[in-house]
C-alpha cells in the first residue's frame, strides 16, 4: 500500500513531550510513595529483642541439676537428630488402617507406625500446627526461635537473612556443641557460621526432586556413625518439591514418601541410647501441592519423636485423639530435653508429656512424681516467658500494662502455691490431694503461657495507623492530581497551564514531609501537621479542578454549535456515566470478600456488559447516519418486498453485533485458562494450567492435542502480525526490522515451541540432559528478543522509501531487435530531460502506518517473550488477549469513522474507552492463569532458560513478575494503539460502518501532522489508565484498611492489596516506558520528514 507524501509543516515543540513525561513521573512517584507508606503501616512488623537467654538465672533451682549436667534443668539426652521433611502433612505421617490404595500418600511411612506400636514408651506422634504464613523460611524462623511470624517476613522469602533473635541453634553453639547440617541451603543463610559441618544443597529449584534428598541420604548415615556431632539437622525438600510439581495425589509422592520411610528406618537403626530423634514437617500442603496460606491442610504438619531410651512415663493411648501441639512448642521442648536454656523470645509451651519420665528419680510408678517433674519444666518455661514479657513491655508500649500486672499476679500466686505444696510435702509427707493440687498448679502455668501467647499474637497483629492514614491521604491527593491532569489534557490549548508547576512543587514538599514522618519519625510524634497539610492540599485540589475550564471561552457562547452537538453529547454523557458507574462498582466490589474471591468471574461480567454498551452505542451512531439515507430507499424496499438474507447479514448493524459476539467468544474462551482459588468451591482445575510433564493419566489423549494447539496459536499469531505489517506496506526493502519480522520472529517462535516440547519430557529424562541442552532454546529466544528490541529502539522508523527510477532501461519495442542501442540512447536522453523538468515526489511505503507498525512489532516481541514464560498451556491465552483487543480496537475505529472530525472533541474523551481497556487487562490477569493469592504464583517461571542456581534474586524476580503480570505488561504495550489504530482504518472497521476508503487517506500520519494534539491525547490516555488502575488499588487499600481485623484479612484482603499494588507498579512502569517510546518514534518520524523537506526544497 503506497501513497504520495504531502509534507506538511509541523510546528516544533520539543518541550511538550518532556513536560508530559515529567508530569507523569511525578504522578508515579506520588502513587508509589503513597502505597509504600500505607504498606509500611499495614503489613505487620514485630519488635525483635536481641537479648539471649543465659544459663544462670535466678528462677532455676540448682537442686534440679541431678543426674547429668544441664542448664536450667538436667538434660535427658546428649544428642539429637532433627529430620525436617518439608511439607510433611499430618495425614502423610498418620497411619490409617482403612485407607484405600488410591491415595499415593497414605500409609507410606510404615517405620513410624511400627515404632509407635512396637515401642509405645519410646515414641510419640503429634499433630504439629504451623502458624501462617506457611512458607518455609517463616516456619524455620518459628521452629528455631519459637516466636510468632508476621506478614512482613513473608515478603523476604528469597532474601534469607541471618536470624538475630535468640534461637536454639545459637544456644547449642554457645554451649560448645557441634552441629552437623545437611539439606536445604536456607538454613545456611539463616545461620551462617554456626554449623560445624554443613552439606547445603540449593533449595530454589522446585523442579528438582532428588538432588537435595539424594545428597542428604548419601551423607546422613556416614555422618551419624561418626562421633563429631551433638546435633544433626537434615532438611529434606523432595516431598515439598514433589507437591509443587505433581501435587500430593501423584505416584511420585508415593515413591518420595517411601524413600523418606527408608531414611527414618535407617536413622533409627544407627541411633545410640543417648540420642533423641525428631521427625517433623514444617508445614502441610493443599490438595494441589502448594502452601503459603492458612488452610487446614497447609497448617497441619506431623511431628514424630523417638528415642531408644524411654521417652515418657505413660503410653500413648492409641484410641485417643492425637495431641495437637504448636510448632513453637518444639523450641522449649528441645532446649530443656537437651539441658539448654530456652531461647529468650520463645513463646512456646513445652510438651509436658515428654517431661514426665526421669530415669534418676524413679518416676515409673508414682504419678505424683511424674506430674511434679513435668511441672518443674513448665515452671521454667513460664519464668522464661515472664522474663521476655518484662523486657518486651519495657522496650515497647504495645503490651497492655494492666494485663501485664494481672499475669504477674497469676504467676506469683502459682509460685506461692507451689512453695506451700513443697513445704507441705516435705513436712508432712502427705500425699492426700497432692495430685489435685498439682493439676491445679499445672493448669495455672499453662494458662499463664497461653495468655501471654495470645496477647503477643494480638499486639503483633497491630497496625501503624499513622502511616496507614498518611498513605491513604497521599493516594487521595494523587488521585485528585490525576483527575486534574486529565482535565489539563482536555484543555483547548496545546499547552500546560502554569498552575501545574505550583502543584508539582507542593506535591514534592508534601511528599518529603510525609516520607519523613512515616519512615523516620514513626508514631512517636503526632502527625497532625501532615494531616493538616494533606487536608488543605485536598481542598485546594478540589477547588482547582472545579475551577478549571477545559472549553474555549468563546465556544460556550456559540449556541449554534452547542445545539448541533447536543444529541452527540447526551449519548456520550450516558456512555461516560455508565463507564464511571461500572468503575465505581468495581471499586466497591473490593470491600466484599465474596466478590474478591470471584473477581475473575466478575471481570468477565463487567467486560460483557461494557462490550454490549459499546455495541449499542455504535449501533445508535450508525442509525443516526442511516436515518437520512433510509428515507429515500424506503419506497424502494417496500416495492421489492423481499427479504434478502445476504443483505441482512452484511448490514453494518449485524456486523457490529457479530463482532461483539466474536469478542464475547474470545472472553468466554479465556475463562478456560483460569486457575482456581482455594475458596472457589465449585471450580475445577483447568487442563491448561497443568504442565505437560505431569499431565493426569486420564487426560493423556489431550496431551499432544494441547501442545499442538498452543503451537498453532503461537505460529498463527506470528504469521498474522507479519501479514498485517505486509498489508500496511511496512515490510518492503531489506532493512533490519524487515529481516527481524521475516526471519527472526519465526525463529523465536520455533525455539519457543521446541523449548515447550523439551519441557514436556518426563522429569528424569530432562534432568539427565546436559545443562546447556536444557537452557539453550530459551536463551536463544531471550537473545533474539533482546536484539530485536534494541534494533527497534535505535531505528523505530519502519518505512521504505522507494528508490526513484532515474534510469529506465526497459526496451519497449523488443521486436525491433536491430535497433537496440539507439533506443537505449534515446531513453537515457529522455530520462535526463525528465529529471531536469519535473521533480518527482518521493514514493514511500508504509508511511500511513508509520506510527502503528512499531507497536505491532513490539507487541509481537513481547508476546513471544511472555509465551515462553507462561509455558505451553497458557500461551494461547495471550493470543486470545490480542485477538479481543483487536476486535475492541476495530469497534473504536468504527466509532471514530462515524464522527466526522479527526481532531474533534468526540475523540478527545477517552475515559469510556480506557475503562473498557483496563477492565479487559484486569480480566486477562485471571485469563492468563493467575489469582491474587500467594500459592498461585507460578514460581517455575524463574526456571525458563535457567537451571536454578541464581547468584542474585533480581533475575528470577523479574521473570516471575513478568509471568504474573503478563496481562498488565501486554496491555501496557498495546495501549498507544488505542489512539493510533483508529487512524489506520482497517477493513473490518470499514465494513462495520459501511464506508469506503477515501482518497485523501493519510493514516496515522495525521497524528504526526498534528503532533501536539497527538502528544496531548497520549498524555490523556496514560493518565486515564493511571487513574483507573489507581482507583482499583485505592479500592483494595481501603478494603484492606477497613477489614484489617476481618477473619479473612490475611487470606483475601491483604494479598489482594499487595497484588494490586505490584500490578499497579507494573502498569506505571510499562506505561511510562511506552510513553517515552511513543515520543521516540514521533521524534524520529519528524526528523525524517524534515530531511525529506530539505531534500525536496533544495
Amino acid at each position, binding site marked *: 500500500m503506497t501513497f504520495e507524501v504531502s509534507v506538511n509543516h509541523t510546528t516544533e515543540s520539543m518541550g511538550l513531550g518532556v513536560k508530559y513525561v515529567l508530569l507523569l513521573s511525578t504522578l508515579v512517584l506520588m502513587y508509589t510513595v503513597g502505597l509504600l507508606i500505607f504498606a509500611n503501616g499495614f503489613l505487620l512488623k514485630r519488635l525483635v529483642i536481641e537479648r539471649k537467654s543465659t544459663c544462670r538465672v535466678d528462677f532455676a533451682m540448682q537442686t534440679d541439676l541431678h543426674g547429668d549436667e544441664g542448664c536450667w534443668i538436667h538434660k535427658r539426652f546428649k544428642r539429637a537428630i532433627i529430620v525436617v521433611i518439608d511439607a510433611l502433612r499430618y495425614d502423610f505421617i498418620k497411619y490409617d488402617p482403612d485407607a484405600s490404595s488410591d491415595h499415593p500418600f497414605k500409609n507410606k511411612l510404615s517405620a513410624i507406625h511400627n515404632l509407635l506400636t512396637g515401642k509405645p514408651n519410646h515414641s510419640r506422634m503429634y499433630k504439629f500446627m504451623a502458624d501462617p504464613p506457611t512458607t518455609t523460611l517463616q516456619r524455620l524462623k518459628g521452629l528455631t526461635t519459637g516466636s510468632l511470624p508476621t506478614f512482613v517476613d513473608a515478603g523476604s522469602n528469597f532474601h534469607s537473612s541471618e536470624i538475630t533473635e535468640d534461637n536454639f541453634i545459637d544456644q547449642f553453639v554457645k554451649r560448645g556443641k557441634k552441629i552437623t547440617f545437611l539439606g536445604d541451603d536456607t538454613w545456611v543463610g539463616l545461620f551462617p557460621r554456626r554449623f560445624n559441618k554443613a552439606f547445603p544443597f540449593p533449595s530454589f529449584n522446585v523442579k528438582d526432586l532428588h538432588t537435595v534428598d539424594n545428597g542428604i541420604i548419601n551423607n546422613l548415615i556416614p555422618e551419624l556413625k561418626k562421633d563429631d556431632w551433638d546435633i544433626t539437622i537434615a532438611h529434606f525438600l523432595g516431598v515439598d518439591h514433589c507437591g509443587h510439581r505433581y501435587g500430593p495425589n501423584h505416584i511420585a509422592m508415593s515413591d518420595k514418601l517411601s524413600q523418606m520411610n527408608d531414611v527414618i528406618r535407617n536413622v533409627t537403626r544407627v541411633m545410640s541410647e543417648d540420642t533423641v530423634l525428631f521427625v517433623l514437617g514444617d508445614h502441610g500442603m493443599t490438595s494441589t501441592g502448594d502452601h503459603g496460606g492458612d488452610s487446614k491442610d497447609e497448617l497441619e504438619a506431623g511431628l514424630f519423636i523417638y528415642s531408644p531410651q524411654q521417652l515418657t512415663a505413660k503410653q500413648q493411648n492409641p484410641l485417643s485423639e492425637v495431641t495437637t501441639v504448636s510448632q513453637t512448642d518444639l523450641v522449649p521442648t528441645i532446649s530443656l530435653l537437651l539441658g539448654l536454656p530456652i531461647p529468650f523470645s520463645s513463646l512456646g509451651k513445652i510438651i509436658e508429656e515428654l517431661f514426665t519420665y526421669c530415669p534418676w528419680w524413679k518416676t515409673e510408678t508414682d504419678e505424683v512424681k511424674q506430674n511434679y517433674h513435668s511441672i518443674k519444666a513448665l515452671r521454667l518455661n513460664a519464668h522464661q516467658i515472664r522474663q521476655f514479657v518484662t523486657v518486651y513491655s519495657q522496650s515497647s508500649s504495645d503490651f497492655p500494662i494492666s494485663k501485664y500486672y494481672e499475669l504477674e499476679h497469676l504467676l506469683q500466686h502459682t509460685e506461692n502455691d507451689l512453695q506451700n505444696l513443697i513445704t507441705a510435702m516435705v513436712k508432712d509427707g502427705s500425699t492426700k490431694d497432692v495430685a489435685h493440687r498439682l493439676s491445679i498448679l499445672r493448669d495455672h502455668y499453662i494458662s499463664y503461657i497461653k495468655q501471654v501467647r495470645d496477647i503477643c499474637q494480638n499486639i503483633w497483629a497491630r497496625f501503624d495507623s499513622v502511616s496507614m492514614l498518611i498513605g491513604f491521604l497521599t493516594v487521595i491527593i494523587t488521585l485528585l492530581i490525576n483527575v486534574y491532569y486529565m482535565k489539563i489534557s482536555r484543555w483547548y490549548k496545546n499547552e500546560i497551564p502554569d498552575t501545574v508547576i505550583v502543584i508539582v512543587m507542593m506535591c514534592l514538599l508534601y511528599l518529603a514531609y510525609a516520607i519523613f514522618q512515616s519512615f523516620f519519625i514513626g508514631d512517636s510524634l503526632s502527625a497532625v501537621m501532615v494531616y493538616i497539610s494533606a487536608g488543605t492540599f485536598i481542598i485546594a485540589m478540589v477547588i482547582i479542578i472545579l475551577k478549571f475550564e477545559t472549553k474555549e471561552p468563546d465556544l460556550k457562547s456559540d449556541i449554534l454549535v452547542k445545539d448541533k452537538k447536543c444529541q452527540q453529547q447526551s449519548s456520550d454523557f450516558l456512555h461516560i456515566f455508565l463507564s464511571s458507574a461500572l468503575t465505581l462498582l468495581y471499586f466497591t466490589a473490593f470491600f*466484599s470478600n465474596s466478590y474478591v474471591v470471584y473477581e475473575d*468471574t466478575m471481570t468477565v461480567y463487567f467486560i460483557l456488559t461494557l462490550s454490549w454498551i459499546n455495541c449499542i452505542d455504535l449501533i*445508535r451512531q450508525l442509525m443516526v447516519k*442511516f*436515518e437520512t439515507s*433510509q428515507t429515500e430507499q*424506503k419506497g424502494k424496499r417496500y416495492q421489492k418486498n423481499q427479504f434478502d438474507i445476504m443483505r441482512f447479514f452484511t448490514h453494518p448493524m449485524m456486523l457490529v453485533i457479530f463482532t461483539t459476539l466474536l469478542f464475547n467468544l474470545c472472553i468466554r474462551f479465556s*475463562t*478456560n485458562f483460569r486457575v482456581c482459588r482455594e475458596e472457589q468451591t465449585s471450580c475445577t482445575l*483447568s487442563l491448561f494450567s497443568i504442565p505437560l510433564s505431569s499431565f493426569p493419566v486420564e487426560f493423556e489423549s489431550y496431551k499432544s492435542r494441547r501442545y499442538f494447539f498452543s503451537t498453532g496459536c503461537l505460529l498463527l499469531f506470528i504469521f498474522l502480525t507479519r501479514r498485517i505489517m505486509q498489508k500496511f506496506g511496512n515490510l518492503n526493502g531489506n532493512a533490519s526490522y524487515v529481516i527481524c519480522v521475516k526471519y527472526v520472529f519465526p525463529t523465536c517462535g520455533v525455539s519457543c515451541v521446541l523449548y515447550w516440547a523439551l519441557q514436556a519430557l518426563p522429569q528424569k529424562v530432562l534432568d539427565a540432559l546436559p545443562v546447556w541442552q536444557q537452557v539453550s532454546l530459551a536463551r536463544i529466544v531471550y537473545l533474539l528478543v533482546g536484539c530485536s528490541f534494541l534494533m527497534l529502539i535505535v531505528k523505530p522508523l519502519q518505512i521504505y522509501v522507494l528508490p526513484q527510477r532515474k534510469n529506465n532501461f526497459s526496451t519497449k519495442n523488443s521486436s525491433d531487435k536491430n535497433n537496440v542501442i539507439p533506443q537505449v540512447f534515446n531513453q537515457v536522453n529522455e530520462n535526463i530531460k525528465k529529471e531536469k523538468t519535473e521533480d518527482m515526489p518521493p514514493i514511500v511505503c508504509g508511511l500511513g502506518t508509520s506510527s502503528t507498525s512499531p507497536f505491532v512489532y513490539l507487541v509481537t516481541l513481547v508476546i513471544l517473550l511472555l509465551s515462553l514464560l507462561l509455558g505451553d498451556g497458557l500461551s494461547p491465552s495471550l493470543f486470545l488477549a490480542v485477538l479481543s483487543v483487536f476486535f475492541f480496537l476495530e469497534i473504536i475505529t468504527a466509532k471514530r469513522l462515524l464522527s466526522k472530525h479527526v481532531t474533534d472533541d468526540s475523540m478527545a474523551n477517552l475515559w469510556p474507552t480506557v475503562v473498557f481497556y483496563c477492565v479487559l487487562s484486569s480480566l486477562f490477569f485471571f485469563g492468563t492463569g493467575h489469582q491474587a493469592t500467594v500459592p498461585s504464583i507460578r514460581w517455575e517461571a524463574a526456571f525458563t532458560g535457567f537451571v536454578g542456581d541464581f547468584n542474585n534474586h533480581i533475575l528470577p524476580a523479574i521473570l516471575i513478575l513478568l509471568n504474573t503480570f503478563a496481562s498488565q505488561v501486554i496491555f501496557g504495550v498495546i495501549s498507544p494503539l488505542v489512539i493510533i489504530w483508529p487512524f489506520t482504518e482497517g477493513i473490518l472497521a470499514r465494513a462495520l460502518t459501511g464506508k469506503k476508503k477515501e482518497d485523501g487517506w493519510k493514516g496515522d500520519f495525521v497524528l504526526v501532522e498534528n503532533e501536539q494534539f497527538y502528544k496531548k491525547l497520549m498524555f490523556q490516555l496514560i493518565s486515564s489508565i493511571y487513574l483507573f488502575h489507581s482507583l482499583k488499588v485505592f479500592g483494595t487499600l481501603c478494603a484492606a484498611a477497613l477489614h484489617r481485623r476481618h477473619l479473612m484479612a490475611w487470606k483475601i484482603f491483604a494479598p489482594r492489596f499487595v497484588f494490586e499494588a505490584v500490578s499497579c507498579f507494573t502498569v506505571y512502569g510499562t506505561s511510562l516506558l511506552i510513553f517515552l517510546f511513543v515520543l521516540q518514534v514521533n521524534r524520529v518520524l519528524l526528523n525524517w520528514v524534515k530531511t525529506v523537506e530539505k531534500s525536496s526544497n533544495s
Partner: protein
Amino acid sequence: MHIIGLRFVTETFHFSMLLAATAILPGLFFLGINFSSWIRVFFQNGAEIGSESIVFITSLCSIIGAWLGAFPIPLDWDRPWQVWPVSCVLGNLIGYSAGLVIGTIHMYIKYNKIRKLKIT
C-alpha cells in the same frame, strides 16, 4: 464438554428462553418483522406513546433486571436462590413487572401532557 468447561447448559437455555420471552416477544407482537421500526423504537428513542413505549420499557427493564439478578450469585450466603440462573430469572421477572408498572405510569403522564397540550 469438560475441556471447554461447559456447564449449566440446560439451565442457561431455559433462562435465555425466558429472557427472550420477556424482552423480544412483546416486540415481535407489536412491531412485527419490520426492521426499521425496531431500529426506531430501540435505537433512536422514537417509540410512540402506547404499545411501542410499553414494549421498549418492559424489554429494557427485564434485561436490566436480569443483569442485576446476577449480583448476589457470588455472595457466600448459601441460599438456594443464589444458584445460577435462579436469581437472574427472578431479577428478570421482577424487572419485567416493574417495567409494566413504569410503562403504565409513563404512559399516563405523557397522555396527560398531550391532553393538556391539545386543550390549550
